[in-house]
């Protein structure tokens, strides 16, 4: 399976006046189908912009983005998107909201899936959406997205409103559904811990640019957390971030060959990897998603 779910090339998106910094600036990445991709970055990094471009809701200022090999607008039917603020019609009941999904996705709608997700949250189908809590609305929005049986599921901060229990349970339902149907999921968050354990692909954005992109395991394997004496040299390795405490130096590096003796080496966690890159915006970007995968 080397089919591409989402691919961007030289993708830029600016808002308003030209002088302002664009929300996305010359982004390139490739997401193979079937992956669960964490889209990570600080607030304002361009995560929501990227997802709305992939959902076909906006046009790129420059460059291209393709979803399932086509323009996003051409594959509306096969892509589901849950926006950050979970917009739903407040005057509809939960049941009518699901009917809304059925009426607007006549060829794909899976009522059983949508109804199950709503029922698992103990929601009354006759309750008006405006009476629901934030977490319950998230559940309805996810039911609407999954009921569509999407091939690509774009979720913008999906779990922000949920309590830990509901988050755990919805995430599990989501992952089971994605695994069963081979759905590609892109999930944005600025809470890294939220994504750890469920994702197998990482896309880290910073200030509108791609900082890290690739399979999570490969990215983690390409980095090492090293501790050693402050005066030791880390040449020729690429140093992402280094911090000196007294005479001790801790650094996240991309080793170029053997690190040699004198260093205490451990594998970084996802959180350490992401935080090190966020703290040092000048660290070089690393893409492990294109050439190798495309060659297969």
């Amino acid at each position: 399976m080397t089919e591409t779910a989402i691919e961007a090339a030289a993708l830029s998106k600016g808002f308003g006046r030209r002088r302002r910094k664009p929300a996305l600036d010359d982004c390139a990445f490739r997401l193979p189908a079937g992956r669960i991709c964490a889209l990570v970055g600080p607030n304002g990094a361009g995560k929501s912009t990227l997802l709305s471009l992939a959902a076909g809701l906006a046009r790129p200022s420059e460059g291209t983005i393709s979803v399932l090999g086509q323009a996003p607008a051409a594959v509306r039917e096969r892509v589901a998107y849950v926006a950050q603020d979970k917009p739903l019609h407040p005057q509809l009941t939960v049941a009518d909201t699901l009917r809304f999904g059925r009426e607007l996705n006549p060829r794909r709608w899976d009522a059983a899936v949508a109804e199950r997700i709503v029922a698992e949250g103990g929601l009354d189908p006759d309750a008006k959406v405006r009476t629901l809590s934030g977490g319950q609305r998230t559940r309805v929005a996810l039911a609407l997205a999954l009921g569509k049986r999407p091939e690509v599921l774009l979720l913008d901060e999906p779990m922000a409103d949920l309590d830990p229990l509901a988050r755990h349970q919805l995430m599990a339902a989501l992952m089971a559904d994605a695994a069963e149907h081979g759905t590609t999921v892109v999930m944005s968050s600025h809470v890294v811990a939220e994504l750890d354990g469920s994702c197998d692909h990482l896309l880290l954005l910073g200030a509108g640019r791609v900082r890290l992109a690739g399979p999570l395991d490969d990215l983690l394997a390409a980095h090492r957390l090293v501790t050693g004496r402050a005066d030791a040299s880390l040449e020729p390795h690429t140093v992402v971030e280094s911090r000196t405490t007294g005479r001790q130096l801790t650094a996240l590096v991309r080793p170029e060959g053997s690190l040699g003796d004198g260093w205490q080496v451990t594998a970084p966690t996802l959180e350490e990897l992401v935080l090190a890159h966020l703290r040092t915006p000048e660290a070089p970007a690393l893409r492990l998603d294109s050439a190798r995968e495309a060659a297969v």
Partner: protein
Amino acid sequence: MTTALPATATPATDRPPRGARGLTWTVLRLHRSALIFWCLAVAAATGVLIWMYAIGDEARRGVGGCAEPVAVDGLPSCRAMEAVTADDTYRTFIALIAGALSYAIFAVAAWAGGALIGRELESGTAKLAWTQSVTPARWLAAKLAVPAVLLTAGTGAVTLLGLWARGDDDPNLVGDWYYPDVFLSTGPTAVAYPLAGLALGALAGLLLRRALPAAGVGFGAALVLYNVLERYRWEFWPTVTRAEAGGFELPRSAWQLGWADSLTRATFHPHSHFWPLQYVETCLVLTVAAVATLAAFWLLRRRTT
């Protein structure tokens, strides 16, 4: 304006669908309060007009000539005529319906800008629709077509009923044909104006993307259209000028526009100009509606993919 809805293949597990489907269903469901209000308004107008037709003959007995002190030559006695109150009721309600028809454009424009389009763009629910299997253009087409059909049916029916209830068009009861309310409510303009309001409101909603400002601007645009057309209505068809030495009088049915040369020359529209004036104004209003609709689609296309 029509919406092409895809043939729907219903999965076997689903309940059999009843009534409207697809986007039509969503528009009817999302704007159910407006739909109920419109149905009630049309029903009320229908009821009132049937009642007016029923009391029409009696109302006509309440106006016209009378004889003192007793009835002679087929003329009723003036005391008997003054006892008739149906003419007041008739006059009031006919004028009320005429006013409602000619001012419907304002309510429609504010609603279209606010509730129909502006609120959806403000709250993000439009994006919810566009990320289902429908394109923004089809969404807007349904948003315009469904109300347009219901508006046309409602205003068309009320206008025809109004013409029927007016009977012989006695100007003492129903007003002269060139009064703005009467003119707008007795021809195709009654159908065209609300449609223009719908298109102008929708355009305002797409431009401003917020409910309240869009409702205000939609209302304002309708107000401008209404007043400009009222101001220039007389120019939509060539006037008639009559000159006679010694002066003359014009019948009441003439829309008098000006007298000159010490009342020997008059410019006016005779009653026969009603239909040409109606047609020209209807065309103008529908052109405004079409241009606003095209602009709305163009704007939507520029904003989305």
